[in-house]
């Protein structure tokens, strides 16, 4: 506690000092400029020329060259300040769980603003529209697009569009007209404003802000449909906002008299052009990015850079063509995510993800801090009680009305209707934010005499929504018992069921002759697989991008990693300990098929969740395959062995290599085939041995827990059976100790989960001789070999 308070104080002091330094720097700079004395000039010359000028006083060893670095220095300093503010905010977790981070950042912004104002007597730093729209907003939106859950987004697209377009228009119109009506009625006193200006103001204050929505909903994990509705709306409504803003701005410039039907029609057309044009630009850039990543194999190190640059360019291009820049960058992110994740190297994918998050988070922080700072500027404050209060009232009330109205209409067409409570949260979650502020700051003072009033109102609205609604969102959600996001990940079985479902529904639709949702989705899916993937993905990526397969792959990797960790912990990855007396002979048969399968499985470019050690595992290519002599055992399907050994092979490490080189970070695969084969043989022998022994007893037990269930109980696995009966058990007792769970070498780690992925060991290694006697299901549960297998798997959950 004391530590925290100290840190807090340190943080604050640091701020103040930094800011004072900055401020003084500015002042010094200012002073230097305003006093061009010969001495100063002379000394400048001396620095530059190095002894040329005649009136120099002497060589300056060190000079304070503020001007030289002013601009970049200030920028860097502000970024630092924003970062430190975030750090200070996050010091106290109990605070951040009550008040959303964005609100706290605004408060810090106020404090900083106050300091600066106090020092400078004017607000030198504000959030200017240029900086905001060109340098701070794009990365936030790109981040939103890149991480957008596409399936969810597109399946709710209809509803999202309805809210975004119709909802925003409704909000804009009602707020504008409402305010106008009240102005006519005299509630606002005497201000120089007109209908068109009200409408313009309405349109810029009506839009739900993506930055604010992310910031607030981040703390509150509502169910995904609800989230995607609000979030999707906040992103797509930019199309409408831009159009309305430009149209009304033009109208105001033209003056009321010039507006006729033609202009209005042009306005409506421009909506379609802006919205679809912007999206099209985004999609084109997404195609470009995907194509580019297809060819960047040789420059993997700078691959991530392309994503950001092209994303930014899509934003700027749309801006240049006066289309919706936000829509452009959103669709760019949405469309390219799948292909670049498949094409790029795993490390690049990770880099992109992390850098994206850093940039987005940083920008958000800076935005909120500056929103706070910009408020501390008496020059912009104009107080008009009527205007401000009415605005607040109208945006709140009309939002509710709008959402409920639209939802009522939508529910007639939706498969899953939106519940009342969800609607309440959706209305309440219509937060306004920095985009509105940016737009209002862009207004021309000459045309809009009451610009300052609008700016003040916007700021108050933003503070109200972000702070008040942000703080009360979580309690509201809890109180209303809103359905929350599912926290656990789907199990493999569920994923398979999902897939089955989809296909089943499509089939039923086909049979019943209906064109449905599923039919469309299926058609798109087929089209995409046939054409787009062929065009946009690298050939190697195409092979390995099935979703379920990826999951499978991830699971294997995780298990393999735990295996390695455990092995390291135990000092060696050797598992074969004793000689066995199994009478099985092996030969390398299906070597070819193996090596063909292996690289595919271990292909690099898999999934977004890359695993750092995967590169090590890639090198596994034991080309031995398991094939038992048929005369020894009635091998049913040798292919069983093959497949299920794939993964064991991944995990398997030859004994020799680890004897000499114990390294925590570097594992080499043994490429000596003979040795590898030898080791395999022994492994297999040992396994068979244990099968035989297991066969004696009843079916061996299969306690294999999933990762998700954390139970600290001993592994019942290889349990009693094997350890009792096979004294000459190949893996020796050590392994069983280990596997025995809570006791033994495993310690708490072993007591932990046995990652289920031991499955792979199953079935394949089963001794067919006694398989026949058991229920086929058993083979899955032939845990004995699981026991044999790196039980190390049971440890850590990464």
């Amino acid at each position, binding site marked *: 506690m004391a530590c925290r308070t100290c840190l807090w104080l340190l943080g604050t002091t640091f701020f103040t000092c930094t800011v004072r330094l900055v401020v003084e720097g500015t002042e010094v700079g200012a002073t230097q400029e305003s006093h061009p004395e010969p001495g100063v000039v002379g000394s400048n010359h001396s620095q530059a020329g190095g002894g040329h000028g005649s009136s120099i006083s002497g060589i300056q060893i060190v000079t304070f060259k503020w001007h030289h670095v002013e601009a970049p220095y200030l920028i860097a300093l502000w970024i630092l300040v924003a970062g430190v503010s975030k750090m200070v905010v996050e010091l106290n977790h109990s605070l951040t769980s009550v008040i959303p981070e964005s609100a706290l950042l605004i408060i810090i912004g106020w404090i900083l603003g106050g300091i600066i104002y106090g020092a400078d007597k004017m607000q030198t730093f504000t959030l200017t529209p240029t900086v905001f729209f060109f340098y701070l907003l794009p990365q936030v939106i790109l981040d939103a697009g890149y991480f957008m859950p596409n399936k969810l987004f597109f399946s709710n697209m209809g509803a999202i569009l309805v809210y975004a377009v119709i909802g925003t228009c409704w909000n804009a119109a009602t707020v504008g007209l409402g305010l106008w009506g009240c102005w006519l009625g005299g509630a606002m006193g005497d201000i120089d404003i007109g209908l068109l200006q009200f409408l313009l103001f309405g349109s810029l204050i009506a839009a739900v802000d993506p930055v604010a929505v992310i910031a607030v909903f981040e703390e509150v994990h509502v169910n995904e449909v609800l989230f995607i509705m609000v979030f999707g709306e906040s992103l797509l409504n930019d199309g409408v906002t831009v159009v309305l803003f430009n149209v009304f701005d033009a109208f105001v410039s033209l003056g009321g008299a010039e507006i006729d039907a033609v202009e209005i029609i042009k306005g409506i057309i421009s909506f379609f052009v802006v919205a679809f044009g912007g999206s099209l630009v985004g999609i084109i850039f997404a195609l470009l990015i995907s194509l580019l990543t297809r060819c960047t194999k040789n420059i993997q190190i700078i691959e991530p850079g392309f994503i950001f640059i092209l994303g930014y360019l899509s934003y700027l291009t749309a801006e240049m063509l006066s289309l919706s820049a936000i829509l452009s960058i959103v669709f760019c992110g949405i469309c390219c995510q799948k292909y670049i994740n498949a094409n790029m190297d795993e490390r690049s994918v990770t880099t992109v993800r992390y850098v994206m998050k850093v940039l987005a988070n940083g920008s958000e922080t800076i935005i909120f801090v500056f929103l706070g700072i910009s408020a501390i500027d008496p020059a912009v404050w104009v107080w008009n009680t009527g205007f401000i209060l009415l605005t607040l009232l109208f945006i709140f009330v009309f939002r509710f009305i709008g959402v409920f109205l639209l939802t009522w209409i939508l529910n007639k067409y939706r*498969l*899953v*209707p939106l519940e009342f409570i969800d609607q309440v949260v959706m209305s309440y979650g219509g937060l306004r934010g920095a985009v509105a502020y940016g737009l209002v700051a862009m207004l021309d003072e000459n045309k809009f005499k009451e610009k300052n009033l609008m700016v003040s109102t916007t700021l108050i609205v933003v503070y109200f929504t972000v702070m008040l609604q942000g703080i009360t969102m979580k309690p509201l959600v809890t109180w209303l018992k809103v359905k929350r996001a599912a926290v656990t990940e*789907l*199990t*493999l*079985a*569920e994923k398979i*069921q999902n*897939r*089955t*479902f989809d*296909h*089943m*529904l*499509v*089939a*039923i639709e*086909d*049979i019943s*002759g*209906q*064109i*449905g*949702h*599923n039919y469309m989705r*299926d058609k798109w899916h*087929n089209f995409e697989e046939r054409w787009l993937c062929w065009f946009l993905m690298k050939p190697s990526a*195409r092979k390995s991008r*099935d979703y379920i*397969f990826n999951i*499978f792959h991830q*699971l294997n990797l995780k298990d393999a990693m735990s295996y390695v960790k455990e092995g390291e912990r135990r000092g060696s990855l050797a598992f074969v300990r004793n000689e066995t007396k199994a009478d099985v002979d092996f030969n390398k048969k299906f070597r070819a098929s193996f090596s063909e*399968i292996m690289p*595919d*499985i271990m292909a690099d470019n898999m999934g977004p969740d890359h695993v750092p050690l995967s590169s090590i595992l890639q090198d596994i290519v034991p080309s031995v395959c398991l094939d038992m002599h048929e005369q020894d055992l009635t091998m049913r399907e040798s292919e*069983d062995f093959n*497949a*299920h050994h*794939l993964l064991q092979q991944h995990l398997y490490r030859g004994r020799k290599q680890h004897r000499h080189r114990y390294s925590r970070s570097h594992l080499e695969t043994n490429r000596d085939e003979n040795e590898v084969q030898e080791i395999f043989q022994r492994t297999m022998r040992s396994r068979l041995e244990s099968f035989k022994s297991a066969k004696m*007893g*009843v*079916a*061996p*037990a*299969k306690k*294999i827990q*999933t990762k998700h*269930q954390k139970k600290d*109980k001993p592994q*019942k696995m290889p349990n009693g059976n094997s350890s009792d009966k096979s004294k000459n058990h190949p893996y020796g007792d050590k392994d069983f100790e280990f596997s025995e769970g809570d006791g033994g070498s495993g310690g708490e780690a072993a007591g932990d989960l046995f990652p*289920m992925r031991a*499955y*792979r060991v199953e079935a394949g290694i089963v001794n067919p001789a006694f398989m026949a006697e058991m*229920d*086929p*299901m*058993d083979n*899955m*549960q032939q845990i004995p070999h699981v026991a044999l297998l790196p039980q190390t798997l049971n440890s850590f959950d990464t």
Partner: protein
Amino acid sequence: MGASQSAGTEHEFQDLADRTGFSLEQIGNINKRFRQLSNNEETLSREDLASIPALDNNPIRAQIINAFFDKRNLHQNETGTVQEIGFEEFLMVMTHFRPAAMGLTEEERENLRREKLRFLFNMHDTDSDGTINLEEYRRVVEELLSKAGTIGQETAKAIADAAMLEVASTTRGKMEPDEFYEGITFENFLQILNTFDIETRMHVRFLHMDTATLRCGKSK
């Protein structure tokens, strides 16, 4: 409804409508479709269904088609399959995909869930013994993933095994040494798919209008 409908059919439809919960128009449309598929005969056979071109791309078409001929889905308490089905049976199968009506009680919802899940379960459990054992599950998964092209048969098997094992551990928990896991029973199945919103997901929208004509050329 075409001119070929007799007055008697109307009455039948009404009866069916009451029993299944479809509206008259929906039943009419489904009937039309049935006639189309069966070439205006009274019964539908497997070949009729198999010849729908759109189903070709579907990885689990075999299972789906079998589901129509599976007695268990026809609300009869028998097992086994039939060779041909009439319109009523066709409709029965379709009822599994009706959306959940609004205002159902908890119990009704639960029943609906069970019914739908039962359909799904039957699809997996091809030998009708009440459990999905490894072989059956493997077969389903293989079929499912086979069209993907990239996944070999062995991997599909491994995935099936993994899933099965997962199910075993979640449903049976800790097992004694002398137990073995026979297969996924219906109860287990319910348990696994507990988090699925099956009432809302397993649902095909049966339109009140006839869209069969919209797909001209596609279906038979």
